[in-house]
């Protein structure tokens, strides 16, 4: 029996704090809204504690050396999100509780299935196919469904699912694996045109194809937020892989062109931009949501009105797109800032994992997964505060939404798997020493 690594002790301590915090906020929201302690607070806290402990035990068994702060941070964001969803809609809260349970189950399953990052690196084209297949699913007549002008849901029986959420993970794995192999080819020119050495376009072909395809699919589904997320992921990973700032410029130009095109051709995009540039003129239509959001943020002030004490339910999409605004109204600038600090620390920990990983694929995947988390948070928080046009995308771990929650727990498990791998440099040696046969089998 090996001694419990210090990292797991830290994790356990933080998890206990998470349960205390969530319980406190939930109780306070109950008092704020109904004037009494919520009846189900006992079972709820018990369930939250049990779920996080299950995840923690899975970490001890399956990834004992992994980063200690990511799981508690995710648990805290999930807990805060739940408190505010429950405060907005008890019905959605019940569903969110089920999705959280499923999320933890998938988290543990991912840790069990993916024992080494190398295993998924080999399946790159499978992941590319799965990613693109999932993106295409909502377009299939019969199971696809339009919600708020965007066609990105599938409907099977009573189950709603947004396959694009999982697709982004599959494509991140694909990008990381292809880029890891070709980073050196992509970082210097190999083909001579006149006096200049330029990149040989054929090395970029598989990635550009995957990217263009996913972009076309997203435009067909009218999901601008995810389009941007994909684009940023693609360019960001290319930049991390090659270290060439050129790609960022290249990306900015492409993005500018794409935005203009979308603006000219897609009504949905035009409405969003109108509501962004001039919300007051369209205060009853495209600007309504964002103006309601502003009022709420302003109303919250420095310390907020207190959980459960605002009229937040009047904001459209309060539990998904606008949840950050609800938090800002009820916990104020101080509380909303704490949530952002939480995201910042998660992304920071993810990038720290990327730095500590030794193999290019692992480095790139860790960077890509952190990028997904960071860009998604940025797109929605900047959207509701009117820094950029508002697009419907979830705030990771916080917003109501099952597909998003489940895919974010997969993302978390992958990051922690990479972290464990980075901290156990004798992984290969250990396998040879302890289990030579299995290694032989997989090589």
């Amino acid at each position, binding site marked *: 029996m*090996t001694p419990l690594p210090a990292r797991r002790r*830290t994790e356990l*301590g*933080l998890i206990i*704090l*998470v349960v*205390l*915090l969530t319980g*406190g*906020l939930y109780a*306070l929201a109950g*008092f*704020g809204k109904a*004037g009494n302690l919520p009846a189900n607070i006992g079972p709820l806290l018990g369930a939250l504690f049990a779920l996080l402990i299950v995840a923690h035990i899975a970490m001890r068994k399956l990834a004992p050396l992994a980063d*200690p*702060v990511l799981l*508690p*941070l995710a648990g*805290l964001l999930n807990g805060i999100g739940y408190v505010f969803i429950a405060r907005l809609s008890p019905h959605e809260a019940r569903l969110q509780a089920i999705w959280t349970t499923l999320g933890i189950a998938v988290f543990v399953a991912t840790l069990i299935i993916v024992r080494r990052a*190398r295993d998924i*690196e*080999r399946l790159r084209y499978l992941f590319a196919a799965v990613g693109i297949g999932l993106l295409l699913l909502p377009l299939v007549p019969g199971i696809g469904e339009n919600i708020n002008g965007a066609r990105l849901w599938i409907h099977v029986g009573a189950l709603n699912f947004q396959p694009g959420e999982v697709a982004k993970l599959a494509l991140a794995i694909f990008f990381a694996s292809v880029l*890891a*192999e070709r*980073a*050196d080819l992509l970082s210097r020119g190999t083909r001579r045109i006149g006096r200049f050495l330029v990149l040989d376009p054929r090395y970029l072909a598989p990635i550009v194809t995957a990217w263009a395809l996913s972009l076309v699919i997203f435009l067909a589904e009218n999901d601008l937020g995810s389009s941007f997320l994909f684009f940023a992921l693609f360019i960001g990973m290319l930049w991390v892989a090659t270290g060439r700032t050129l790609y960022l410029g290249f990306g900015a130009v492409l993005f500018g062109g794409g935005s203009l095109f979308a603006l000219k051709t897609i009504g949905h995009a035009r409405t969003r931009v109108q509501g962004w540039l001039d919300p007051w003129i369209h205060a009853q239509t495209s600007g309504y949501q964002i103006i309601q959001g502003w009022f709420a943020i302003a109303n919250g002030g420095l*310390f*907020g009105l*207190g*959980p459960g004490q605002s009229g937040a339910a009047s904001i459209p999409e309060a539990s998904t797109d606008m949840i950050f605004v609800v938090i800002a109204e009820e*916990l*104020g600038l*101080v*509380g909303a800032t*704490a949530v952002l*600090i*939480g995201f910042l*620390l998660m992304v*920071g*920990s993810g990038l*720290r994992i990327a730095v500590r990983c*030794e*193999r*290019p694929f692992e480095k790139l995947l860790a960077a890509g997964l952190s990028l997904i988390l960071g860009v998604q948070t940025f797109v929605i928080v900047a959207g509701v505060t009117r820094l950029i046009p508002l697009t419907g995308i979830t705030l990771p771990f916080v917003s109501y939404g099952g597909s998003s929650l489940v895919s974010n727990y997969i993302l978390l498990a992958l990051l922690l798997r990479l972290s464990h791998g*980075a*901290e*156990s*440099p*004798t992984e*290969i*040696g*250990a396998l*040879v*020493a*302890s289990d*030579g046969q299995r*290694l*032989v089998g997989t*090589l």
Partner: protein
Amino acid sequence: MPDPVQALIKYVLLALLYLFMLRVIRAVWVETRQPQAAPSISPASSPTPYGSNHQAPGTPKPPPGPEKLVGVSPAEVKNREFPLGAELTVGRAPGCAIFLEDDTFVSQLHARVFRRDDGLFVEDLGSTNGTFLNGVKVTAPVKLSKGDKVQFGKSTLEVRK
């Protein structure tokens, strides 16, 4: 519950929220200030329970078996010498101990050559074009002896004393 009490609880919870973030930052800070033992490359000297415990720490004995790899072909590697330590990585990534930057048939991290108590081994690390020992493809860690020819990509190296 009276409003002032609720407000008080709210402040306490906000403070607790920041306390949580501070604890997270401290956990990261402590690790960055006192980095854990730098990733040790050698399984033999590894302090983890996985390592082979055949030798007492601090009493290195001269490693048995061959001592260097010498390039044979092509011309870029010919007569280049790579002294062998406890573990060498072979590949086209700049951090590799046996850095075969000119051979495009070599993967970024192609293979590793490592020493265990019973000799010197070569193991392919999932390279695209394979590792060959005396012309036979390496699928599992294989023991090396003097005079063996190991091929990574297009580059061939010979094991010498």
